[in-house]
């Protein structure tokens, strides 16, 4: 539980804005609850940012709900229009690479040949420092 509290605490400085649950929105589906908002923001690592954004999602869901009117019993999902063809696989030989320097140049934070990331959430020592 402490990890969750820390997570919420850390998020606050990012301009925390709360209370975006959609109330009865005539065009919405009422599906975007506070839990859903938090869950989606966590998964997507993108925040809603405003009430309008929540309302837009409500509308998008209501729009998508129209799909349920289509009869799809016995219909297989289509993943690719090329499903009847054999996927090309090249032979497992190294033919290119050795471009670490070029690739590292595109990053803002690099140390020697490493991309540098801030600490993840699984370091209790870091939080207790």
């Amino acid at each position, binding site marked *: 539980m402490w990890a969750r509290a820390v997570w919420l605490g850390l998020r606050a400085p990012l301009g925390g804005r709360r209370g975006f649950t959609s109330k009865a929105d005539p065009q919405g589906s009422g599906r975007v609850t506070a839990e859903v908002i938090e869950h989606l923001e966590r998964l997507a690592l993108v925040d809603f940012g405003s009430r309008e954004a929540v309302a837009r999602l409500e509308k998008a869901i209501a729009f998508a709900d129209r*799909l349920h009117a289509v009869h799809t019993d016995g219909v297989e999902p289509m993943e690719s229009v090329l499903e009847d063809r054999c996927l090309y696989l090249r032979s497992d030989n190294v033919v290119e690479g050795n471009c670490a320097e070029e690739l590292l140049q595109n990053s803002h934070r690099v140390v020697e040949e490493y991309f540098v990331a801030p600490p993840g959430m699984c370091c209790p020592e870091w939080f207790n420092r």
Partner: protein
Amino acid sequence: MLGRTLREVSAALKQGQITPIELCQKCFSLIKKTKFLNAYITVTEEVALKQAEESEKRYKNGQSLGDLDGIPIAVKDNFSTSGIETTCASNMLKGYVPPYNATVVQKLLDQGALLMGKTNLDEFAMGALGSDTGGSTRNPAAHCGLVGVKPSYGLVSRHGLIPLVNSMDVPGILTRYVDDAAIVLGILAGHDPKDSTTVQDPVKPFMLPSLTDVSKLCIGIPKEYLVPELSSEVRSLWSKAADLFESEGAKVIDVSLPHTSYSIVCYHVLCTSEVASNMARFDGLEYGHRCDIDVSTEAMYAATRREGFNDVVRGRILSGNFFLLKENYENYFIKAQKVRRLIANDFVNVFNSGVDVLLTPTTLSEAVPYLEFIKEDNRTRSAQDDIFTQAVNMAGLPAVSIPVALSDQGLPIGLQFIGRAFCDQQLLTIAKWFEKQVQFPVTQLQEFVDDCSSILENEKLASFSLKQ
């Protein structure tokens, strides 16, 4: 020279009537004069002039590489270009310089084409003019009086094209004439070992025959495309086009694509879902924008993405993630994939009944003025404007928009032909015949530029930027 066909310009270059450097400079002059349109994100003058010099040498030695040698081209800014900034018109990729060329870019450069620059687009090609995968080659073509070709999915490599929807994205071609598009398609098509979604069928550059007899053709008119929102002008042109084919002996029949009314919804779910996945790579670590926050990875990712993406992009990511949630996956994502099959099957059934091509509008009307356009939000706009173009992306079929006439307001209107999968050559052959019948007026570039210059002198124009 700037209004001629590709072959004419190529011939002029071969005969020395104009040199690649002169051609290049004429283009850049026009680019400078039309800068207020904000059409280019990056103009690559040095690169192009260097390429032009090399092209000139080749022509002097009689060793031109082909039809595209010395021809100026522009590339949308979601194609990777080695050493040249590639941004997708997004803050997220501002300053990003790819270390490689997209396959299609490489193919054009190998043929000696001159890269003028990277053109503007809606952020990550999620514009309401059709996202990159829903018509954003054909819609702008129709609005601007150009030929816009969407090849069959799997014909042209997507390697280096920053992906939006992997199962629908296709590089598109914009030119003034069908023949020019065919030349370019002939160069770009073909299997690419770096893109396993390209088919392995052999492909070679093709010349379009000049059709004189259309009496053996069967043209299908999908009745579900006759929607109330269709402007009377477009409707009238569509009808006239059908009559034209009939009067020349072709068989023109009504056909049905029963699931048409669901294609926008289906596209909406599949597109946002794939986008949610594709945009996940932008976390600020390896490339692209990175925020200053260093507290934790999650905080860094979240702030980077908030700063890097605009509302439209973030909205789609959130929608997509919603549809992909465990509790929603079956009811939305899988459901949409099933509906996609029904839509694709509609086309298969029609083509199996003997139809060679479908003839439809490309857009509901001529281009809408900006102030009116921004009244609706992006999803609504997409839903409305992509109606004729994006079912084609879901079925993976080839399609082309041909400019037909100017509206009463003097704005271009185009019509669309849809072909069978991998019958791109046949599709373009028919389109070429139609283009010849229609004789769409060629843009008088010099007049236009002079008019613009005088308007700019007389009025103080506010920002013309269509994107922030």
